[in-house]
């Protein structure tokens, strides 16, 4: 439950970023020269990274941009990328895993070999290479595409394994004897048995992709400035953590909170989808 509340809050905050920044009065790209101290090399004025009533989470060193505003807009990008990538990987993996497990034969061989190939690939190096080589493309679309290409294999494996066990259960045979056609058996008999593992995977994939996006942006191949993202902020804060630790702590805290909340949500969903957990 706590996970659900935190996840919903984060999503809501990200979605309402323009409203909130309008209310605080500080857009993510607005410089505030009054909040930093030029004599200290651009450090924010005041303790705790310049946190005060004007800038609720402090300001960025040198530029004086509002950290809260950048966190919210960065969260939009991070969550958008993570959710899109999760949706694409789950749907692709589900369809291919179902086909491989249910049809067997050459379809299974083809899909399984592609899965093996992609899984044995050094995906991080490949992602960095592609992201740094491809230039004039929408970075968000590119990030989603690159994360999805390597992500669906895990779902396909889980689904294939589950389908292989479910397909030989007696209740599937019973549905055949009852006159169920292939479509019915896939949708009504096999798919319901897959919801729990897939939901659990999806809720773990979202934080994993938030992390991956942050890692790639941290390495400088992800979301490009001026678009803010959490990984980019952590990367910027790296150079300031001795003098302005709060600037590093805030994006890290949001990243950690998102991952933790999504994981808790995954556990909760798994319990909710287990028919044996709710006894009446």
């Amino acid at each position, binding site marked *: 439950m706590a996970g659900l509340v935190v996840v919903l809050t984060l999503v809501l905050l990200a979605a309402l970023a323009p409203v909130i920044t309008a209310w605080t009065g500080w857009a993510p790209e607005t410089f505030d020269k009054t909040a930093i101290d030029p004599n200290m090399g651009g450090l924010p004025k005041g303790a705790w990274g310049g946190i005060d009533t004007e800038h609720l989470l402090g300001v960025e060193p040198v530029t004086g941009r509002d950290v809260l505003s950048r966190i919210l807009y960065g969260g939009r990008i991070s969550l958008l990328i993570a959710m899109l990538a999760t949706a694409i990987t789950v749907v692709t993996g589900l369809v291919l895993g179902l086909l491989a497990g249910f049809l067997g034969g050459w379809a299974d061989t083809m899909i399984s070999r592609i899965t093996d190939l992609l899984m044995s690939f050094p995906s991080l190096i490949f992602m960095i290479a592609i992201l740094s080589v491809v230039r004039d493309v929408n970075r968000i679309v590119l990030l989603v595409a690159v994360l999805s290409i390597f992500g669906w294999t895990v779902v396909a494996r889980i689904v294939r394994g589950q389908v292989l066990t479910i397909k030989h259960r007696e209740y599937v*045979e019973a549905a055949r*004897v009852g006159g169920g056609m292939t479509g019915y058996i896939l949708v009504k008999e096999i798919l319901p048995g897959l919801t729990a593992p897939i939901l659990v995977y999806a809720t773990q994939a979202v934080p994993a992709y938030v992390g991956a996006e942050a890692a790639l942006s941290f390495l400088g191949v992800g979301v490009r400035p001026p678009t803010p993202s959490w990984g980019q902020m952590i990367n910027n804060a790296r150079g300031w953590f001795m003098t302005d630790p709060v600037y590093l702590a805030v994006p890290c805290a949001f990243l950690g909170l998102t991952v933790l909340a999504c994981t808790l949500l995954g556990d909760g969903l798994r319990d909710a989808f287990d028919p044996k957990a709710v006894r*009446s």
Partner: protein
Amino acid sequence: MKSVRAALDAPTVPESMPLLEVRDLAMTFRGGVRAVDGVGFEVAQGETLGLVGESGCGKSTTGRMIVRLLEPTSGTVHLNGQDITHLSQRELLPLRGTMQMIFQDPFSSLNPRHTVNQIVAGPRRVLGRDQVIELLERVGLAPEHADRFPHEFSGGQAQRVGIARALANGPKLIVCDEAVSALDVSIRAQIINLLSDLQEERGLAYLFIAHDLSIVRHVCTRVAVMYLGRIVEIGPAASLYSDPAHPYTRALLSAVPVADPKIEAVRERIVLRGDPPSPAAPPPGCSFHPRCALAQRRCESEAPQLREVRGRKVACHYAETSA
């Protein structure tokens, strides 16, 4: 219940034609395992044929070929005179109402995510909710069970749900694949009684698959004993039990305990040596000869065919001498 009744009143086949006719049925799995090797029998309307044998003898495979969960490698299955051996799933649809199956494990044969109502109504939704409830009451469940999930039931109740599902289409033939083997002894009797009541009421025919001759005794008109993919003895239940002709049937019967302790203490028990041979490499000649007490030189080379002995069919060279 209307549709069930309607199916019963439907024009039936001529008396002479058996409801189910199986000829030379064989199933070879990948890797050359001959799970079933030339099995043939008939089931008449309203009768019960028991199919008995050790695990791995091919009795379940035979049952699955008859309801066409498996496609036989060779041989034929005729239902109501129609050849259904190689029909596609779609072509089988109209026949799904005629033959149904009850499975061994009541829990794994009920989808844990479906309500009883969904399960009994079946993939084709042949029954409305009221009819489902009527059917549930007939098999000894309460109307409120319709909205429950399988895990909320005991094994016996779950098997009743499985029976209700099999009855939903108004079948003429039900293949009971070890339908009571997984149940407690006390519940077993209740389920067997329910099955016989339903048989009388609806003129059902059963193919009753079991590994235990004692269960089969109470329900079957005729019994077929299988060993390593073949029928070794088939005949009326009464004579097969009182006077088994095949040494394997005798061994199976001697394993059934007798209730009277005096008889139990002195009766002769035949203990089979070793395990049944692998169906991937059956022994030459009579496949039972390595474990048979009567085996002669002839049994090692010449496979016995089914032939008439004392009013039934037996596949043993020495069936006459072994009384």
